[in-house]
């Protein structure tokens, strides 16, 4: 997982300017895809483009090696605190699985 950091702020999304210092120099680093489930929801009513996947889980993963979170989809049910890792990337979505 690629992480962008500046002023101690780490994020999986790249921004033009740092919200703290206004700078545009972000350090890029590669960290482990693994993390723990910070929270989740099982979506039963989905928009048209995801309707055939429902019900599916959307999870917020607290990354092990960075001070930031990433949103991902999981097919199996999870609980807060479960250890998970990236299984694959599918149409721009991170698909995670339980370790």
């Amino acid at each position, binding site marked *: 997982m690629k992480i962008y950091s500046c002023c101690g702020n780490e*994020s999986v999304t790249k921004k033009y300017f740092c919200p703290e210092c206004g700078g545009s120099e972000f350090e890029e680093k590669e960290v482990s895809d693994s993390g723990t489930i910070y929270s989740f929801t099982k979506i039963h009513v989905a928009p048209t483009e995801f309707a055939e996947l429902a019900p599916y889980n*959307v999870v917020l993963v607290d990354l092990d090696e960075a001070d930031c979170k990433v949103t991902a989809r999981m097919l199996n049910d999870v609980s807060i605190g479960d250890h998970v890792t990236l299984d694959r990337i599918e149409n721009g979505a991170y698909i995670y699985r339980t370790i």
Partner: protein
Amino acid sequence: MTETYIHGIGMTKFGTLSESSMKDLLLDACAEALKDAGRPKVDAVFIGNFMGGSISNQEILGAIVANDLGLGYIPTAKVEGACASGGIALRQGILGILSGEYDTVLVAGVEKMKHASTADVTQAINAAMDTTTNEKSAGLTFPGFFGVLANRYFNETGATKEHLARVALKNRENALNNPLAQFQKPATLEEIMNARMITEPLGLFDCSPMTDGAAAIVISRKKSPIHIRATAQVSGPTKMQDAKNLLSIPAIGESGRIAYEKAGIGPEDIDVVEIHDCFSMTEIIAIEELGFFPRLEGWRAVEEGRTKVTGDKPVNTSGGLLSRGHPIGATGIAQVYQLVRQLRGNAANQVENAKIALAQNLGGTGSYSTVHILERV
């Protein structure tokens, strides 16, 4: 402090209004507000609307209002800020008056949703998220964000699904007394708890409905008994994964803080509140963010009945988005409609001797929030 006053209000019934077009609803609410204000000369029009383009293929709402109501060659605009479109439209009207450009402004909000399928509306509402990200690709929905938030809130507090249900039940009970509300059938705690899941742990009653409806208000620099004491607006994170603290929606807290500062008062001075309960969970977060109750303790206030009409901080006496209904662009204006009725002393679920009122309107998953503080003078 703003030198801006409310002179007239209008609102259609909220619900399934299949006989009326979006334009019909908008014009009905605007005409009622203008009559209530005594048909003043209007200098500008701002309309809050979110999905008129995508669902009804209808834009130019400002010009339609000016033309069909015979308001003359005046400036008009549609304002979009997702579910905060109405609140932002009101703020733009106030700023137009404060700038000195206008004396009197007509502000309205409208949405027509019930003719479309749930899947298509869910898709259209997803436009209120940043759709270019891995988050959207993961299949996160708008309600889904609040489901993720709720599960974490449960994890960190003593709150359970029953507390969410108590919010939904309170707002349903309030709606039963509001003839303009969408839902007028009583519900039980058990029914709410056992309703079908939308996005866990949020069930059907935890989610605001699709609604047709419109609301309008006339504001002016000329004095009236209803003074708009403060207007505030801020933007916040547009992505769940960017939230520093998932259990805080900083746009709500910051817009509230600025509004209190401008009004020179605090949360303890507010007599009656309309807040943006797009989901039952959101109402609990908002009452914390606005300083009515300590952080992570809003659920206790719900449990103790403090946000009921009979409580010390009555929230959503109209029935809220959950039961009054949520025609997206109209919601921010409908909140003010209810509060003006409260300050005039003729509201559904009237709070005795209400003098200062607060409306908070949220857009996106915390992308926008407006706060307006009204005072009877």
